[in-house]
């Protein structure tokens, strides 16, 4: 039985939603989480890579949710020139089905109620203020009251829009992605690989993220405004045909990641937005798992706090946007500017940069070195890149 009223309703059972539900419930609120799909974590619209240290700040993952750990990234330029550089943080490739289930379990343990196959199709307004949600359940439609809504409904977020917050994206700021999990291949589990080039993935990159020596998430994202002729799926089929001919396809999914500037506002009267729904994924890499978890936690905590104070109007919840902005806003903006520059670099420029970097021994390649060397030899890139740091 679902109650008719809760303190907080969370829409969406991804990492942002389950984390928000967990922290809200831990703070003592009555919490309902509604997910439209029949299972949390499925389908896995994700390449499953996270920074290990960043992840540990927020959750201790179930060991079964971690497949491989690695600490290098291999870049492949349009002409095939490669260079490898070590990252500061160890990366790990998750099993998101297990990982997302686990986040759900933690929320449930904290006391949140989770319902799947619950499609939220509208908000309920009471004297002009949000008072709950309209949900379509297998046995019919229902209206459920809540004091605060946390919109964690992913890239397709509509809940925020119903509350009057602009959450849709211009095509340029959306990565249109397609991914296959390939089996029966041979991959090196020491690094992840990223391929660049207008023929590979215009306005984005292709990734090979190993899950085992013989299995990998192979996918790509293209800027949604650059799909005049070919779709992400077409680019990926071509890529896989070339690099992994004869591979078995264990799964394939389409998906989207926001690559946007920070939203001006991720809160409203009685509503907070978290994760992809708030455009919080990294605009440069498209990584959004830890961003979603971090924002979900903040949203859950602030929602609880506001409930305790009995005030959850726009002005009371503004602290959420402010805290997000203070902690991550600057970095997010910087990554957005870098993305804008990188997407404009021609294949020739990328090749030239890769030729120089390929000469530096990989142990010495750090992000700083990359910039320093490229800048020294390619003043034109210097100008472009300098602009994005201004």
């Amino acid at each position, binding site marked *: 039985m679902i109650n008719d009223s809760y303190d907080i309703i969370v829409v969406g059972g991804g990492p942002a939603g389950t984390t928000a539900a967990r922290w809200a419930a831990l703070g003592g609120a009555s919490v309902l989480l509604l997910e*439209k799909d029949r299972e949390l974590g499925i389908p896995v619209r994700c390449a499953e890579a996270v920074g290990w240290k960043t992840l540990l700040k927020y959750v201790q993952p179930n060991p079964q949710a971690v497949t491989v750990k690695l600490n290098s990234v291999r870049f492949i330029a349009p002409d095939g020139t490669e260079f490898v550089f070590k990252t500061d943080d160890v990366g790990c490739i998750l099993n998101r089905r297990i990982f997302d289930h686990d986040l759900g379990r933690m929320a449930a343990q904290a006391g949140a109620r989770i319902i799947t196959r619950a499609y939220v199709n509208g908000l309920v307004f009471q004297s002009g203020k949000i008072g709950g949600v309209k949900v379509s359940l297998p046995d019919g439609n229902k209206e459920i009251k809540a004091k605060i809504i946390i919109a964690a409904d992913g890239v397709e977020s509509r809940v925020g829009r119903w509350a009057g917050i602009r959450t849709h994206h*211009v*095509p340029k700021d959306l990565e*249109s992605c397609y991914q296959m999990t390939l089996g029966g291949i041979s991959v090196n589990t020491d690094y992840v690989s990223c391929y660049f080039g207008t023929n590979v993935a215009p306005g984005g990159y292709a990734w090979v993220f190993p899950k085992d020596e013989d299995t990998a998430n192979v996918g790509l994202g293209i800027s949604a*405004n650059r799909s005049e002729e070919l779709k992400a799926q077409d680019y990926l089929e071509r890529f896989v045909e070339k690099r992994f001919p004869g591979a078995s396809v264990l799964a394939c999914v389409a998906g*989207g990641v926001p690559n946007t500037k920070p939203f001006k506002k991720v809160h409203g009267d009685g509503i907070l937005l978290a994760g992809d729904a708030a455009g919080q994924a990294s605009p440069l890499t498209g990584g959004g798992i830890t961003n979603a978890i971090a924002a979900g936690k903040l949203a859950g905590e602030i929602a609880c706090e506001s409930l305790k104070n009995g005030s959850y109007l726009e002005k009371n919840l503004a602290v959420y946007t402010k805290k997000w902005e203070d902690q991550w806003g600057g970095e997010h903006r910087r990554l957005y500017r870098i993305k804008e520059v990188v997407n404009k670099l021609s294949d020739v420029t990328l090749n030239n940069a890769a030729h120089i970097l390929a000469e530096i021994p990989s142990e010495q390649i750090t992000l700083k070195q990359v910039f320093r060397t490229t800048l020294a030899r390619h003043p034109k890139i210097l100008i472009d890149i300098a602009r994005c740091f201004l």
Partner: protein
Amino acid sequence: MNYRAKRKGKRTELTSLIIKEENCDYCGCCVAVCPVDCIELEEKKISIDMIKCTLCGNCPYACPVSALVGETA
């Protein structure tokens, strides 16, 4: 100049929009770029309110597969 106005100048708007649901993966990219919020996307069901749709042409671009086909004049 706002984005849509720019787009109008650059690209022809659509004359019709067709959903090929057999290709759809229900990923939500189309919803994410729809300026008028006229796409309804459930777990395994998609529909577009053609009365609200302005045929702006965003969603066929965003779709990672060939599930939305826009026709231009």
